[in-house]
C-alpha cells in the first residue's frame, strides 16, 4: 500500500540547533503510529511538521495524500485532511463546547448552522460529553476538554489525526477516558500519529512504534519489537527509565 503520509529527509533547525536530523518515515492509510522518546527528542516537532505548524528545511519533503506540505493553497488542502489534538487542549474559551466543534466546518467548509450543530452533537455524544454541549470549556475538567478537542478535530472529517502528547497535561484519573476515546478512534480506520508517554496505550493500540532520540529515529517496529525487545541501547535505557519511575 502506498504511503499516505510520506516524510523524506525532514530537517529542522532552531537557529544553529538541529531539532530534526533528516527523518524518513512513511505512514500507511489506517495505520496507527506511536512516537515515543525522551523530551527534547524531536517527536513533537516531527508531528507538528506534518501540518506545518513548524516550518522545516527547503530540501525536506512531506506529502499527505500526495499533496506537498508547502505554504499556500496546498497547505490549506493538507490541513483540511489533517486533524490535530494538542497537549494543552487549546479549546476556544469564548465559545461553547458545541460552537468549538462547529466553527471549522462552518467557516472552512461552509456547512450550514443546523447541519454543523447536528454533526457537533453527534461527535460530542461519541466522545461521551453530549450533555455538556452548552457549557464553556473553562467549566469542564481536563479530560472532558481534551475529548472536546478530539471532537473538534474530527468535525473536519480528517484522514489523519495527529496527537501531540494528548494526556500529558491531564490529572492521572482522567488519562483513561481520553485514551478510551483514542482507542475507539483507532478502531475506525483513521490514520493516527500519536506522540505519547503512555506505553500501555502504545503497546495495545499501535501498529508501529517509533523511538526517537536526539532528532533521529533510533528504532522502529511493532510494539512487541520496540517496547518488548528493543535492540538499541538508547531505547532500552529510555524504556527502563520510563517503566521503573
Amino acid at each position: 500500500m502506498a504511503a499516505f503520509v510520506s516524510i523524506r529527509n525532514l530537517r529542522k533547525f532552531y537557529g544553529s540547533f538541529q531539532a530534526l536530523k533528516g527523518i524518513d518515515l512513511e505512514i500507511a492509510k489506517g495505520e496507527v503510529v506511536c512516537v515515543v522518546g525522551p523530551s527534547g527528542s524531536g517527536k513533537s516537532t516531527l508531528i507538528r511538521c506534518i501540518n506545518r505548524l513548524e516550518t522545516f528545511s527547503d530540501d525536506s519533503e512531506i506529502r499527505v495524500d500526495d499533496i506537498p506540505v508547502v505554504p499556500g493553497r496546498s497547505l490549506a488542502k493538507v490541513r483540511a485532511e489533517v486533524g490535530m489534538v494538542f497537549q494543552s487542549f487549546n479549546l476556544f474559551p469564548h465559545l461553547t463546547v458545541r460552537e468549538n466543534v462547529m466553527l471549522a466546518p462552518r467557516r472552512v467548509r461552509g456547512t450550514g448552522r443546523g447541519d454543523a450543530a447536528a454533526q457537533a452533537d453527534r461527535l460530542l455524544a461519541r466522545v461521551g460529553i453530549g450533555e455538556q454541549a452548552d457549557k464553556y470549556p473553562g467549566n469542564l475538567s481536563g479530560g472532558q476538554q481534551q475529548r472536546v478537542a478530539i471532537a473538534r478535530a474530527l468535525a473536519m472529517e480528517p484522514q489523519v489525526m495527529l496527537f501531540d502528547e494528548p494526556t500529558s497535561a491531564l490529572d492521572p484519573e482522567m488519562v483513561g477516558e481520553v485514551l478510551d476515546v483514542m482507542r475507539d478512534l483507532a478502531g475506525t480506520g483513521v490514520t493516527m500519529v500519536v506522540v505519547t508517554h503512555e506505553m500501555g496505550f502504545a503497546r495495545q493500540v499501535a501498529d508501529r512504534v517509533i523511538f526517537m532520540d536526539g532528532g533521529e529515529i533510533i528504532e522502529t517496529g511493532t510494539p512487541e519489537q520496540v517496547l518488548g525487545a528493543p535492540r538499541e541501547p538508547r531505547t532500552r535505557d529510555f524504556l527502563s527509565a520510563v517503566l521503573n519511575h
Partner: protein
Amino acid sequence: MDIFETFFNTEVLLRTWPLLMQGLWVTVQLGVASIVAGLILGLFLAMVRLYGPGPVRLLTRIYIDIFRSIPLLVLLIIVYYALPFVGLRLSPFASAMSALTLVSGAYTAEIFRAGIEAIPRGQFEASAALGLNHRQTMTDVILPQAVKIVIPPLTNNSINVVKDTALASVVAMPDLLKQATQAQALAANPSPLIGAAVIYIAFLWPLVWAVSRMERRFGQGAR
C-alpha cells in the same frame, strides 16, 4: 464679593448655559468622531505592525512611535497653521479631528497589539490546524478574546481623547472650553469656566469609574 458670587454665580451660569451646551455638543461630536476613527486606524495599524511585510511593519512602528512622542498641541498647531502653507487648509473641526485621530490611532494600535499578543499561541495553532485562514482566525478566534483584554485600556484612551478635545479651542474650535472662555469674557465672571470643568468631570467620571471596575473584574483572572 464672596466666593460664590465669583465662581458659582447662578445668574451668570443660567445666562451662559446655552453657550456651554453648544460647546458640549461640539466636544462630544469631536470626541466620538476621533475615538471611532482612531479605533479603525489603530486596528489597521496593529494588523500591519503584527502581520504586514517587513518594510511596512517597520514604517508602522515608526509611525506609532512618532505619534506617541509628539505633543498633541504641537501636532494640532502644525495641522491648522502649518499645512495651509502647502495648500492644505482644514476647518478647525477637521484639523482637530485629524490630530486627535492620528495620535489616538497610534495609542490604540499599541493597545490592540498587546491584546492580540496576550492570546496564547495555542489558539493560533489550533485555528491553523483546523484549516482556518488568517482572517477567520482573527475574526472568529483571536479578536473576540482580545476585546475583553483591550476594553479597559481602550476606554482609558477614549477618556484621554475626550479630554484632549479641549486643546481644539486654540484653533478656534467652538468646543466646550472655547465657549466657556468666551462666556467668561462676555459676563466678566469665571463661573462659566467652573461650569465647563464640572461638565467635563460629570461626563468623564462615570467612564473613569467603569475602567477601574473593569480592571478589578478582569484582573481577577476571569477567562
